[in-house]
């Protein structure tokens, strides 16, 4: 599968994404500078973590107007996968491809730690290699990851299976104590209505080798690759 990993000024997780996709999973993964406006040669687009444009004004607010974002929107419109991780999730929310917004952590602290995620919908682009209720461990690393949307939006997300997973404890319970940033309803990852645009705050590219503390992140990447293969075959 051909992945474009988009690089904005201030992106920091681009090489980690490329390493996991290319070196660990044997996919094509190219770094694409944000001034490139052509993504037509790629099957999937990854917006990685970081601090695009210094997070000035609001996280992702300036990156949203980069030339590459028109191509990302077109890529999403034709139904191809778009995956936003951390800052990438923030960019997708700012651009309107996903609902809601990521706000300052309720602790006001930058949180860099492992989190447990409970899989809620195992049929999304990013979770089809998992099972509902499965608990996986993926690290977070952010200061502004508190997901917020109004109640009507949240109800819509939940009733349509668009919450992919929530922060939880080791037993899979989404408790207040297991919520690292104050996200409403412990939401950690969501998909758009069509199911091809995916956003999550935790970093699956940092859970690819046991040396790094775990390999659960590979399950998510393998889901995307599996979904891509199915699309091509179909």
């Amino acid at each position: 599968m051909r992945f474009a990993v988009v690089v904005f000024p201030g992106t920091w997780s681009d090489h980690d994404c490329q390493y996991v996709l290319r070196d660990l999973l044997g996919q094509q993964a190219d770094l694409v500078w944000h001034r490139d406006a052509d993504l037509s040669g790629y099957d999937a687009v990854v917006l990685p973590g970081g601090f695009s444009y210094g997070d000035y004004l609001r996280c992702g607010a300036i990156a949203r107007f980069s030339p590459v974002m028109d191509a990302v929107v077109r890529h999403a419109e034709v139904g191809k996968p778009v995956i936003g991780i951390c800052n990438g999730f923030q960019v997708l929310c700012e651009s309107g491809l996903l609902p809601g917004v990521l706000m300052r952590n309720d602790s006001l602290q930058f949180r860099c730690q492992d989190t447990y995620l409970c899989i809620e919908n195992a049929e999304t682009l990013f979770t089809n290699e998992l099972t509902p209720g499965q608990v996986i461990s993926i690290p977070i690393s952010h200061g502004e990851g508190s997901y917020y949307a109004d109640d009507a939006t949240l109800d819509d997300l939940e009733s349509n299976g668009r919450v992919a997973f929530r922060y939880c404890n080791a037993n899979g319970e989404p408790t207040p104590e297991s919520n690292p940033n104050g996200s409403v309803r412990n939401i950690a990852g969501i998909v758009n209505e069509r199911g091809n645009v995916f956003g999550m705050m935790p970093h699956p590219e940092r859970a690819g080798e046991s040396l790094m503390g775990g390999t659960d992140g590979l399950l998510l990447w393998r889901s995307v690759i599996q979904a891509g293969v199915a699309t091509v075959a179909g």
Partner: protein
Amino acid sequence: MFRARVYVTLKPTVNDPQGLTIRGGLHSLGFESVEDVRAGKYLEITLEGDDKASAEKQVTEMCQKLLANPVIEDFRFELRET
């Protein structure tokens, strides 16, 4: 030329942990009278415009498109000719 003073504030329904922390700081300084603090952003924008109405239209668009996120924020501004 026009000078706009833009205030971006969190909507009343949105939780503001920064504001709560600042309130705590003020209390610990002895300002027990402080009931509530809401943190926001303040921007000064200098721009050209044919008249006040067109400058006002431009600043409104800036706020809607970039300066405020309508999911969580409200905006208001004052405009004066310089």
